[in-house]
């Protein structure tokens, strides 16, 4: 287990290293003077000089890369073109809003998805099963930002059940503001997870140990919800880890549509104001988040499965 964890994190670190390199190469591959592009029309000689020094543009390219790595390792993602504040600081200020949204979405979509999937698998080929199947495909197919817009229109503007914009103050108000955005970006995950759970559940329900549980007269509910689901749920953990990337993407739209602060809003605003260090910093941090959460999901998965946990 420990060596598995080490190997998994080594892979994550390697992927991050390549990701950083790719970002570096991308910035360099853009024709023209990077400083000029990054600063845009607002470039003053003073700012230009500072950025040139920061990016070590006067050095040979391999040295630039080494310095780039060094800065990353120290958590230095550059400085805000306007305020001169550290990009890392600015990004981490916005991150909690995005994480709040993502976790809310994961919680409700995983709970509902698992329930639907397990129920459908326990009653295969019934009307409910078929309905769940069609709904799942439809949910998966519906793009989050369109769902966000349509639900904004229907539930906030038209019916006025929920607030349209912002994050709110205090626990209940914040929760109230979370409902629509979390609904919008979680919907396709309900579909994903329901399909996944149904498939793995059907497989598990066919296994011999389930027949044993039945032969001992255990209640069907307990067999499905404990004996089978404990196993069928394992792939869901992995998928949620991978899902972080999708949810980070979807959160960008939800933040724009519902005018919530967060990583996505920060990036879009920074693109509009051509504040590139913030854009790059946010992209790198969200990538890091994604890579770490995928690795963590694999570890949690291994830990939840006693067969993997107790083996080396």
């Amino acid at each position, binding site marked *: 287990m420990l060596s598995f964890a080490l190997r998994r994190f080594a892979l994550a670190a390697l992927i991050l290293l390549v990701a950083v390199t790719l970002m570096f190469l991308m910035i360099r591959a853009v024709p023209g003077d990077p400083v000029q592009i990054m600063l845009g029309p607002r470039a003053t000689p003073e700012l230009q000089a500072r950025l040139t020094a920061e990016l070590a543009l006067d050095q040979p390219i391999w040295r630039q890369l080494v310095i780039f790595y060094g800065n990353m390792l120290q958590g230095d993602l550059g400085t805000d073109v306007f305020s001169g504040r550290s990009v890392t600081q600015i990004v981490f200020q916005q991150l909690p809003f995005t994480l709040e949204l993502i976790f809310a979405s994961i919680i409700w979509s995983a709970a509902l998805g698992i329930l639907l999937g397990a129920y459908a698998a326990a009653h295969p080929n019934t009307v409910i099963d078929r309905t769940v199947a069609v709904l799942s495909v439809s949910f998966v197919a519906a793009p989050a930002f369109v769902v966000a817009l349509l639900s904004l229109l229907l539930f906030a503007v038209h019916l006025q059940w929920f607030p349209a914009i912002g994050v709110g103050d205090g626990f209940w108000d914040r929760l109230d503001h979370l409902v629509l955005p979390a609904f919008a970006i979680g919907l396709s995950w309900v579909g994903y997870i329901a399909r996944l759970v149904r498939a793995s559940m059907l497989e598990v329900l066919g*296994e*011999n*140990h389930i*027949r*044993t*549980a*039945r*032969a*001992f*007269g*255990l*209640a069907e509910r*307990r067999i499905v919800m*404990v*004996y089978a689901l*404990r*196993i069928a749920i394992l792939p869901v953990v992995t998928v949620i880890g991978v899902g972080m990337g999708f949810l980070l993407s979807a959160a960008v739209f939800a933040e724009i549509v519902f005018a919530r602060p967060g990583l996505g809003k920060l990036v879009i605003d920074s693109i509009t104001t051509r504040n590139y260090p913030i854009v790059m910093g946010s992209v790198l941090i969200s990538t890091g988040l994604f890579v770490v959460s995928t690795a963590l999901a694999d570890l949690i998965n291994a830990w*939840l*499965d*006693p*067969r993997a946990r*107790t083996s080396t």
Partner: protein
Amino acid sequence: MTETLLEIDGLSVDYETERGDLKALRDISFDVRKGEIVGIVGESGCGKSTLISSILRLTAPNTRFRQGEVRFKGQNLLQATERQMRDLRGDDISIVFQDPMQTHNPVLSVGQQMVDIQHRSSASKAEKRAKAAKMLGAVGIPDPEARLSQFPHEFSGGMRQRIAIAMALMSEPDLLIADEPTTALDATLEVQIIERLRELQREMHCAVLFISHHLGVIAELCDRVVVMYAGAVVESGDVREIFHNPKHPYTRRLIECDPGHIKTRARVLPTIPGEVPDLANLPGGCIFRDRCDQAMDRCAQEVPPLERLGEGHLAACWLNHEEVSA
């Protein structure tokens, strides 16, 4: 004469398939009395598994009970409600399945599973754990308290089968069904487990329906034996009578083919030439005719009835008629 516990009476079971109905069991009749060990023997595909899943009503969805009854303590299980069946399973009737490697839930500890199956008892969790540990000790698992918190994959195949037996006997059932419990194990383990099973059976006085394709084990363990071929009973009776005086050519071939007795294990049954008939498309006459070296004209025309040939000895073969009439 002791009281009858389980009666299978004219049971016919089909599987509905795309190729048509598969006649998995045809007119099966036998009974198991209280405290007695009855063996069922036959090749793979003879309907043994269908039979036991029919008794417990744990059958695949495409199963159709066409005829007959399965009576347990006089109650027809095929008419019982799902609720009534659930009350029987793991309480009055327990089962040990064939493949010990897959018979337990892989993500729940052995202790958890053994506590769970005592769901009918009102004892505290600690008491249930203590009982589970006691049962593990009884089937010969050392240090049972500590091993309760381990997971199935931490036990060897033999150990897992002992756990399965411990679980099956925990409720002190009236009937224990053992479905080839030792087939997946090697010979020494097989002997140990069979002996342990017999000791426990004597202690608890439960009846056992022991399914095997290993005649040696059956001879060693059972009081009576039922020989099945292609979904039908071809011969049944007292173990000694069957072994010393088999009245059906199939039984005779089985005995001939059994490699010595209990010391060696038949992984694959030495072959009797020919194939089991297609259950979806049964030929007329005797089902064993194609593989029988003593087949006669009559065997192709009429199905031989299962007839009483002696004290509790039944066989379905025209040869016996020849003898009787000759």
